[in-house]
C-alpha cells in the first residue's frame, strides 16, 4: 500500500483523534463523529494491522477503516459540513492572505540549501514569527518557533555541559597529579632498611600517606562520575530535543499542514547538523509499522518532507482536475475531485485561493448531494427522488443508479406491505394490518400511500363502528326489513365479528321466513286465493307486526275477502274473551266463506276440544 493511500487515511483520522502518532499507536477508540457506513460494507478484521490499529482507506469504495469500524469518507457529516462551508467561503485572495503565503514561501526559501550563505534559521524564524499572526496559521508557526527555541536552549545547555566537562577534565588531571604526589615511599615502595640507611617510615606516616591518597582517589571518582553524568545528560537532552521536534513534524504532517511540515523538517536538519534524521519511533508501534510496511524503509524526516511535498502536488493536481471538469459540466466528478483535494489539502494555497465562482457551480450540487444522503438516511424517499431528478438535470455525469435503486427498492417493499395490509383489512385481520403497516412505515415512513391508507383505515374503523351501532339499533327496534334492505352494508361490517355475525344471521333467517311467506302469498294471490294469502300474511304478522310488506298486502287483501276476514276477526275476538260458543259459530261461518281456511279449521278444533274434551 502506497503512502498516497495512507495519506488520506491519516488525514481523515485527524478530526477523529488529535493524538500524536509518533511514539504510540492510537490509544483511544475513534470518536463518535465517525458514522459507520452501510454502503461501504464492513469486512472481517484483517490479519494485518491495517484497518485495525492502523487506519487505511480503500479508494475504490471511499471507505476508511480503523479499529474494525468503517466510515464512508464522503458520508461524514463533519466532512460534509466542512466541505460545504469551504464551498460557500470566499477565495482567500485578500492582501492579508497573500502576505501570509509570501511569508511562508520566504521562510521555506530561507531554509533552502541554495540560499546564499546556506540555510538561515534566524531569518526563517523571523518570517514564521510574522506568519503566526495570521488567523489562517492557527499559531502553528509560533509553535514551530517554540520548538526551535527549545533546541537552542538545549544546545546552550549542551555547550555548558561540555565546558563543565572540560573543566572537570582539567581538574581530574590535577587530582591525578596530586594523587601521585601524595603517594610517598611508604606508599609507593616497600619499606627498606637498606644501604641508604634511611630509617623505615613509621606506621603513622604510612597511614597519613594512605589517607591523603584516598582523598585524591575519591575526588577522581567523583569527577569521573560527574563527567559521565554530564555526558549522559547531553546525550539524553539531545535525544529528547530531537524526539520533541520530530513529534511536532509528524503532528504537522498528520494535521495536513504540509507547508509547516516542510518548514519543520528543514529546520530540524538545520538545527541538528549531525545528519541523524531518522524518526525516533517506538519500536513495534503502529506508526512504525505504518512507515515500514508501507515504505519498506526506516522513516526519516526527509521522508516526511517528501511526502508533504507530494501531498501538496496532489492537491494542486486535484484542483486542476476540478477546474477542467467544471468546464465540462461534470459536476459530480468535479465535486469528488475537489472533495478529495479538500480532504488532503484544506489549508493548501491552491485550495484556499480557488475562485468562489467555480466553487459555486458545485456548491448547489454538493448541497443537494448531502441532502440526498440525509433524505435516504431518514428514509424520506419522496424528497430523495426529487433531489435525484434535480441532480440529474444539473450534472450530466451524475450516477443516479444507486440512489434510484435504493428509492425503488424501498418504494416496492413498502407498497408490497401496504398491499398485504389492505388484504388483511378486507379479511378483518387487524393484527396483520397493524404488522404490515408498521413494516411499511419502517421502510418508508413518508410514503404518501401509507398516509392515505392509514386515513382510510381510521375512517373505515369509524364508519364500521357506526354501521354496527345502526345494526344494534335496528335489531332493538325489530326493524328487520330495513336490515334486510341494507344487508350488503351490514354483511361487510360484521365480518370477523362473531357476535354480530350471529345477530345478522338471525335477522336474515327471520326475514327469510317473512319473505318466503310473502312470496307464497303473492303466488296465492296470482291464482286467486286471496283468502289463503291473507291467512298466511295474517299469521306471519303476529311475529312481524311492523313489516311494511306484510301490512301492505294485508290491507289490500282485506278489501277482497271482507266476509271471511270479518268472520275470523269476530271469532278471534270472542275466543279471546272466552266466549267459546259464539266464537265457534264465527269460525264455522269463516269456514263456510273459505272452506280451505286453516285458521277456521284450527279454531273449530280448538274450541271443540274446549267445549267437549274428548278425554
Amino acid at each position: 500500500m502506497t503512502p498516497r493511500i495512507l495519506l488520506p487515511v491519516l488525514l481523515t483520522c485527524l478530526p477523529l483523534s488529535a493524538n500524536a502518532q509518533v511514539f504510540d499507536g492510537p490509544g483511544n477508540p475513534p470518536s463518535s463523529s465517525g458514522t459507520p457506513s452501510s454502503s461501504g460494507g464492513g469486512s472481517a478484521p484483517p490479519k494485518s494491522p491495517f484497518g485495525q490499529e492502523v487506519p487505511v482507506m480503500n479508494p475504490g469504495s471511499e471507505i476508511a477503516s480503523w479499529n474494525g469500524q468503517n466510515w464512508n469518507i464522503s458520508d461524514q457529516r463533519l466532512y460534509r459540513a466542512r466541505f460545504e462551508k469551504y464551498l460557500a467561503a470566499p477565495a482567500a485572495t485578500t492582501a492579508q492572505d497573500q502576505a501570509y503565503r509570501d511569508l511562508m514561501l520566504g521562510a521555506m526559501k530561507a531554509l533552502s540549501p541554495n540560499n546564499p550563505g546556506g540555510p538561515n534559521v534566524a531569518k526563517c524564524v523571523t518570517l514564521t514569527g510574522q506568519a503566526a499572526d495570521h488567523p489562517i496559521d492557527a499559531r502553528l508557526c509560533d509553535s514551530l518557533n517554540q520548538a526551535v527555541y527549545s533546541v537552542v536552549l538545549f544546545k546552550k545547555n549542551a555547550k555548558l555541559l561540555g565546558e563543565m566537562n572540560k573543566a572537570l577534565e582539567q581538574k581530574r588531571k590535577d587530582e591525578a597529579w596530586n594523587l601521585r604526589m601524595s603517594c610517598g615511599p611508604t606508599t609507593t615502595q616497600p619499606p627498606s632498611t637498606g644501604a641508604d640507611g634511611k630509617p623505615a617510615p613509621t606506621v603513622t606516616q604510612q597511614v597519613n600517606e594512605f589517607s591523603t591518597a584516598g582523598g585524591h582517589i575519591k575526588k577522581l571518582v567523583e569527577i569521573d562520575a560527574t563527567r559521565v553524568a554530564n555526558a549522559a545528560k547531553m546525550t539524553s537532552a539531545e535525544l529528547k530535543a530531537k524526539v520533541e521536534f520530530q513529534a511536532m513534524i509528524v503532528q504537522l504532517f498528520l494535521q495536513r499542514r504540509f507547508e509547516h511540515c516542510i518548514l519543520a523538517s528543514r529546520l530540524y536538519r538545520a538545527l541538528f547538523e549531525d545528519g541523524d534524521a531518522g524518526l525516533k519511533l517506538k519500536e513495534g508501534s503502529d506508526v512504525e509499522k505504518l512507515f515500514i510496511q508501507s515504505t519498506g524503509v526506516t522513516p526519516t524526516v526527509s521522508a516526511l518532507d517528501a511526502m508533504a511535498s507530494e501531498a501538496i502536488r496532489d492537491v494542486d493536481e486535484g484542483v486542476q482536475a476540478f477546474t477542467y471538469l467544471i468546464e465540462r459540466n461534470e459536476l459530480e466528478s468535479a465535486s469528488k475531485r475537489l472533495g478529495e483535494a479538500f480532504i488532503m489539502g484544506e489549508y493548501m494555497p491552491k485550495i484556499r485561493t480557488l475562485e468562489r465562482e467555480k466553487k459555486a457551480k458545485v456548491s448547489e450540487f454538493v448541497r443537494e448531494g448531502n441532502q440526498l444522503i440525509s433524505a435516504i438516511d431518514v428514509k424520506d424517499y419522496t424528497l430523495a427522488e426529487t433531489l435525484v431528478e434535480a441532480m440529474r438535470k444539473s450534472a450530466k455525469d451524475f450516477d443516479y443508479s444507486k440512489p434510484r435503486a435504493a428509492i425503488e427498492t424501498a418504494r416496492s417493499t413498502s407498497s408490497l406491505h401496504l398491499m398485504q395490509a389492505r388484504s388483511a383489512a378486507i379479511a378483518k385481520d387487524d393484527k396483520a394490518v397493524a404488522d404490515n403497516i408498521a413494516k411499511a412505515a419502517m421502510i418508508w415512513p413518508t410514503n404518501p400511500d401509507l398516509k392515505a391508507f392509514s386515513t382510510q383505515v381510521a375512517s373505515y374503523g369509524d364508519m364500521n363502528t357506526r354501521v354496527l351501532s345502526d345494526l344494534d339499533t335496528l335489531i332493538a327496534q325489530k326493524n328487520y326489513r330495513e336490515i334486510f334492505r341494507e344487508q350488503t352494508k351490514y354483511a361487510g361490517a360484521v365480518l370477523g365479528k362473531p357476535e354480530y355475525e350471529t345477530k345478522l344471521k338471525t335477522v336474515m333467517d327471520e326475514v327469510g321466513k317473512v319473505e318466503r311467506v310473502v312470496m307464497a302469498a303473492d303466488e296465492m294471490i296470482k291464482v286467486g286465493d286471496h283468502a289463503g294469502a291473507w291467512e298466511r300474511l295474517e299469521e306471519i304478522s303476529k311475529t312481524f307486526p311492523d313489516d311494511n310488506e306484510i301490512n301492505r298486502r294485508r290491507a289490500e287483501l282485506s278489501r277482497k275477502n271482507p266476509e271471511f276476514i270479518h268472520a275470523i276477526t269476530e271469532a278471534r275476538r270472542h275466543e279471546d274473551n272466552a266466549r267459546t260458543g259464539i266464537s265457534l259459530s264465527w269460525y264455522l261461518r269463516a269456514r263456510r266463506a273459505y272452506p280451505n281456511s286453516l285458521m277456521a279449521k284450527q279454531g273449530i278444533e280448538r274450541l271443540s276440544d274446549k267445549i267437549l274434551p274428548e278425554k
Partner: protein
Amino acid sequence: MARRRSISPLRPTLIGLAVLLIAGGALAWMRRPGTVEFAAGTQPFPAREFLDNFFGLRGNRYLAQGRITEQLRFGPDRRRLFALSITDTSLTEPCEVGLLVPASFGSLNIQTGQEFQILVEVDQEGLLRAIDLKKS
C-alpha cells in the same frame, strides 16, 4: 107468586168439572203425537241477532230449524257437539252454529245432513244447547 123449583148446590160444580174434563180430553186429543206442533209458541232462533249480539239471547229458548253439517265431538259422557246450519231469511246464507246435544238424547240418531227442529237454549258463552229435538 109461583113456586121455584129447588136447585141442588152440587150441580154447578159437577157441570164445571164436566166441562174441564171435556176440554182436557179435547186438548189431549188435539196434542196427541202427530197432531200437536213441536215447541209451539217458541220463537224461532234469531240467527242474525245471535251473530251480531248474542248477549241479549243468553238464557232464552228458541226453536231452531236446521241441518246437521258436521259432528264435531263425541264426548265420553255421551254428549255430542254438532255444527248446525240454520236457515234464516234475514241472512243471505245459512248460519252455522255450534249445537251441544246432552246425553239424554244419546239414543237419538243424529247424522250429518239430517234436518231437525231443535228447541235450543243459548248459554252464557253463546253455545246452543239442545233442549228438545225433533227430526224434520
